[in-house]
């Protein structure tokens, strides 16, 4: 549905994005993850034909954003970071205007406006001036605006920024409900958002793509190793050597726990090898008390930090 191929955008001598390549399948929700200033908005603006790219191509539903911008614009619903609303208009007259410039069939217009209002639950605010709406409701109006012409592709730039926790949950659910019929690209710098709503993630940092994968795979891949956490009552050094005897164990770190002679151990193991039962057996066989045992999976947050710090190190050298 969306093909981005070696996209580069320069502002003067500054490269906002460099060699960005990714695809989005039909009906998929793609998360665009990166810190502020990473190039998320720039990429989205190129996809929506708002900005021209310096190099590379981008195609939406088979149409090139540079050669056939009108065709692309007809197929895209775009919610910029700040909802593009006119404060002095009512919700209804605003949606009516947007429906007209998006080329919605005049006979369908009324019906479409009602549909999107229901969809984002702003029906009771139809006659309200947009300036009197709260930030969350303005965001919904922004979303309604993006949906009004039933576009194949939705591009949402930080759709949950500035909302309160309840609103964030609602908007996320709304977006999830839209997948399937719409192909969605969603940008965010909030990590849990990606794992909650997206099927695939593009991590972008300093204008370059750092990784593209599912949230789960990404976590696993970047870990390089899996970790098991256990608490054992027994002599620290002995337990450590016993565990190290097990095949597949890479490293063992230990810490003294509060209270009687219990220690916590963090065991790093080879990827995709579940050796929890072997660790348990080993501990018990040697006559130590096993208090706790669980796998430690790295959160996406850690992965993300790792990604950006990696980048930092490279630059620092």
């Amino acid at each position, binding site marked *: 549905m969306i093909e981005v191929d070696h996209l580069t955008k320069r502002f003067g001598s500054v490269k906002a994005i460099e060699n960005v390549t990714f695809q989005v399948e039909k009906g998929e929700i793609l998360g665009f993850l990166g810190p502020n200033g990473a190039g998320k908005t720039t990429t989205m603006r190129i996809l929506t034909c708002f900005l021209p790219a310096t190099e590379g191509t981008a195609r939406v539903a088979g149409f090139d954003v540079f050669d056939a911008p009108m065709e692309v614009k007809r197929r895209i619903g775009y919610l910029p970071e700040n909802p*593009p609303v006119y404060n002095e208009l009512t919700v209804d007259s605003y949606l009516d*205007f947007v429906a007209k*410039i998006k080329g919605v069939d005049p006979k369908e217009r009324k019906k479409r406006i009602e549909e999107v209002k229901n969809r984002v639950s702003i029906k009771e605010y139809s006659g309200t001036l947009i300036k009197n709406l709260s930030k969350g409701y303005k965001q919904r109006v922004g979303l309604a605006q993006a949906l009004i012409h039933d576009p194949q592709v939705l591009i949402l730039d930080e759709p949950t920024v500035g909302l309160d926790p309840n609103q964030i949950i609602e908007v996320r659910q709304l977006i999830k409900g839209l997948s399937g019929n719409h192909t969605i690209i969603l940008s965010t710098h909030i990590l849990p958002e990606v794992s909650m709503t997206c099927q695939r993630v593009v991590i972008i940092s300093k204008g370059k793509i750092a990784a593209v994968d599912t949230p789960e795979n990404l976590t696993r891949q970047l870990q390089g190793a899996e970790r098991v956490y256990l608490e054992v009552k027994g002599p620290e050094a002995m337990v450590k050597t016993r565990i190290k005897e097990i095949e597949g164990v890479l490293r063992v770190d230990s810490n003294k726990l509060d209270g009687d002679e219990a220690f916590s151990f963090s065991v790093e193991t080879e990827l995709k090898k579940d050796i929890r039962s072997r660790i348990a057996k080993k501990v018990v066989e040697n006559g130590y008390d096993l208090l706790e045992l669980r796998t430690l999976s790295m959160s996406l947050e850690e992965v993300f930090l790792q990604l950006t710090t990696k980048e930092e190190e490279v630059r620092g050298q």
Partner: protein
Amino acid sequence: MKYVFALLEKELRYYFVSPIAYVVLTVFLIISGYFFYNILTIFIERSMFASLQSQQFGGPPPSIDVPALVSRNFFGVLSTVILFMLPMITMATFADEKRRGTMELLMTSPVTNLQVILGKFFASLIFFLVMLLPTLLYQIFILLYSSPRMAFGPIFSGYLGLLLLGGALIALGIFISTLTENQIVAASVTFGAFLILWVIDLSARSGGTRLQEVLSYLSILNHFEDFSKGVIDTSSLVIYASFIFLGLFLTFRSIESLRWRQ
């Protein structure tokens, strides 16, 4: 065309929900009313004085065409007053869209830049017409109560001239509005530009050198004088049409370059 109409409708709606529209309309009405009253009084007094003189000294009856003089001077005043009013009509056109981020909506919608510009231009022009509408009342008074009957022609040409002059000034104002995100800056710069046009017109009138002749030919305020006298000159039409075209063309280029500059 239907896109232009949708944009025009939105602009007009926007004008009439903002207080600026009503302030501009009211101020214009007060100022134009005041000047109409003054001009009318001055010329009626002058003509009465002249006819008294002719009665006393037995000369020929005075040849002061009061209605024509009133209407000509009134149009002259209006053409100056709109220099102060039009910046307020055009200041928000693009500056405000840029500030509130709705420019992104317009530019990612399947409408062309030309459609957006035309929608805004015609909306401003229609607003300007609405502003002029009440002054028609004054003209109707003159038409009804003047004797001999005032000719209809100069009134028509006067309004046509105002519309063309207004169109040219609006096109320039809209262009200036694309250059900034700040309405106040847009209004100030537009007003400054209008003043420069005015100064050019003044200096063109003050002498007869080659340069001044050229200037008087190019001065859009100077061409308006013909219209207020009831003369519709093709060269004036061409000047106004070119000026409007130039303003809208600059707007178009400015909007296009917006995409590359950002």
